[in-house]
């Protein structure tokens, strides 16, 4: 976690105009198909390429889960607590469900949580960070206070407290809880980026042209920090996936949804340690780590969009 945060800080410290770089790069000849420059830069980065391939595998597993998974993840008709075998690659749960099928369906839950909670927390961070950075003065002071507050309040205990009070349990409430607690870093990074961008000449020109603040912030400045926004979305998605796993592991998830966190909770509570079902303990966590790794790797490429020093030829 803190590693990603570190990268975001460096990004913010080295602000550059994405659009202007993109335009120059787009004119490079020699490619038969028109590949947008950002995509090309990300793909050219070796780490990001590995990450994209991994992410694509997870995405395919999530989309085609009903086709790929050999059994229904809720089918309890098998012999319980079995070790891996030809019929059940990763064995069966204490309730007699197929672990491999659950693992595949779990990708769907994680990706949905990552995409939605990542989007929402990025949006909250974007709006608050941009207004704070652009408006300055007392508005900035007040919003910065909330940003700092969101950064220092320990997230998991806060999520646990809110979840414990919520009357309903389900995937929607988890997404909301993660979104409202996890926007601090995004807001902080965007605020410092906008502070350095707002002094540019084209912004001064917009102000003289009489453009409104909303227009300047969202039409003039925002397109120039797209790579930063994408990077913070990917970071937030990874954080959300990890947070969901933690909440589900604590038993605060939706019991009806198959998720890697819930699987680990059952593996821990059902005596997989005693029965020696190492695959039950090992597989969901590895899947979780690989998915978050793939996002971190993709971000190496996204960082390279705004920072040419990080590019690989």
């Amino acid at each position, binding site marked *: *976690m*803190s*590693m990603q945060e570190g990268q975001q800080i460096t990004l913010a410290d080295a602000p550059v105009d994405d659009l202007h770089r993109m335009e120059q790069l787009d004119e490079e000849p020699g490619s038969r198909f028109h590949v947008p420059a950002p995509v090309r830069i990300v793909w050219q980065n070796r780490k990001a390429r590995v990450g994209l391939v991994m992410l694509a595998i997870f995405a395919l597993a999530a989309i085609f889960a009903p086709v790929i998974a050999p059994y229904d993840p809720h089918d309890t008709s098998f012999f319980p607590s079995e070790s891996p075998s030809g019929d059940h690659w990763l064995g069966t749960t204490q309730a007699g469900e197929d672990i491999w099928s659950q693992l595949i369906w779990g990708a769907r839950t994680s990706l949905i949580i990552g995409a939605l909670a990542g989007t929402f927390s990025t949006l909250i961070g974007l709006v608050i960070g941009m207004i704070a950075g652009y408006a300055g003065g007392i508005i900035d002071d007040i919003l910065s206070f909330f940003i700092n507050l969101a950064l220092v309040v320990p997230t998991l205990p806060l999520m646990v407290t809110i979840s414990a009070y919520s009357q309903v349990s389900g995937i929607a409430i988890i997404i909301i809880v993660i979104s409202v607690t996890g926007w601090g870093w995004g807001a902080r990074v965007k605020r410092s980026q906008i502070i350095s961008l707002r002094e540019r000449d084209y912004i001064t020109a917009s102000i003289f042209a009489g453009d409104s603040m909303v227009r300047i912030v969202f039409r003039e400045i925002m397109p120039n920090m797209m790579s930063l926004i994408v990077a913070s979305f990917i970071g937030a998605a990874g954080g959300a996936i990890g947070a969901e796993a933690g909440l589900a592991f604590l038993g605060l998830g939706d019991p009806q949804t198959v998720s890697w966190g819930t699987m680990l909770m059952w593996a821990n509570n059902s005596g997989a*340690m005693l029965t020696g079902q190492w695959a039950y303990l090992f597989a969901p966590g590895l899947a979780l780590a690989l998915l978050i790794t793939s996002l971190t790797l993709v971000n190496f490429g996204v960082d390279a969009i705004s920072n040419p020093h990080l590019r690989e030829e």
Partner: protein
Amino acid sequence: MVYFIRKVFFFLLTLWAAVTLNFIIPRVQGGDPAEAIVTKLTGQNQAVNPAQIEAIRTMLGVPDEPIWRQYIDYLDQTLHGNFGISYSYFPYTVLHMISEALPWTLVLVGITQIISFAIGTALGTWAAWRRNGRFDSFVSTFAAFFGTLPYFWIALLLLYLFAFKWSWFPNSGGYDGDHPPGWNLDFIRSAAYHSILPAVSILVTGPIGWIMQMRNTMIQTLGEDYTRLARAKGLSERRIAFTYGARNAILPNVTGFALSLGGLIGGSILVEQIFNYPGMGRLMFEAIGNRDYPLIQTIFLFLTIGVLTANFIADLLYGVLDPRVRRGGES
């Protein structure tokens, strides 16, 4: 001086905000929160006894009063340390339960954080100094994977391998039942023995963030003019690496040290639960299971105040260490 006054002001303001947040959370759901909780408990077929309702009332104040009155009562109770009675550990007070659990978490989180920081900073210095060397390439390549391993999953694997499979370490608890807590060698030895696996679960990935942060900052400081000057003066390599490169690069880590505590506490909640370690994390987990709301909320408040205080100290320290921050405005 302005810097320090600002920081004290910010600290007090965040403290107040955290206490207020704690007041707001149960009331966001609307309606009478005490009643809602009682309904929820009965809905789960749990017997609601008068003591529980009394505990809920103590925690939430008298709901017939206007909200500002409740808020003032709440602030008053909080300032006087009245957090009510835990209804899953009746008749113990919430404060009593927390005072028993807090030292365990303080020691576990404190020690692992300091060790992670020390190892990470040292290895980060090494990686930056021998940039593109063998260790640097190894760390840079694998940090993206090992840094994302969830603490609680590592904890599960360690528990399975070292406690269940090979029985090298105890599989549960914070100390041996034969040695009750106290300041004697037997207890300390048994507590240390029990805390090895929980601590290692955190230490496997803990230093990685620090390594990367230190490495990246130090690569920058090694490129600065003052480092070049140091080289031109013919200072020893050692001196350049530690006094010029590392010493300047360590500054951002001081702020990071306190900020990352929040994440570490989250991780330790899960780890403690796995090892049945008698700290705040396990207490919180049990409080969730029992729907012990006074306990859940007070734990949240204590953890938040802990992180806030750590950040406050880090801010002050940063001001002492870096004269630039103290003099100029910070952004």
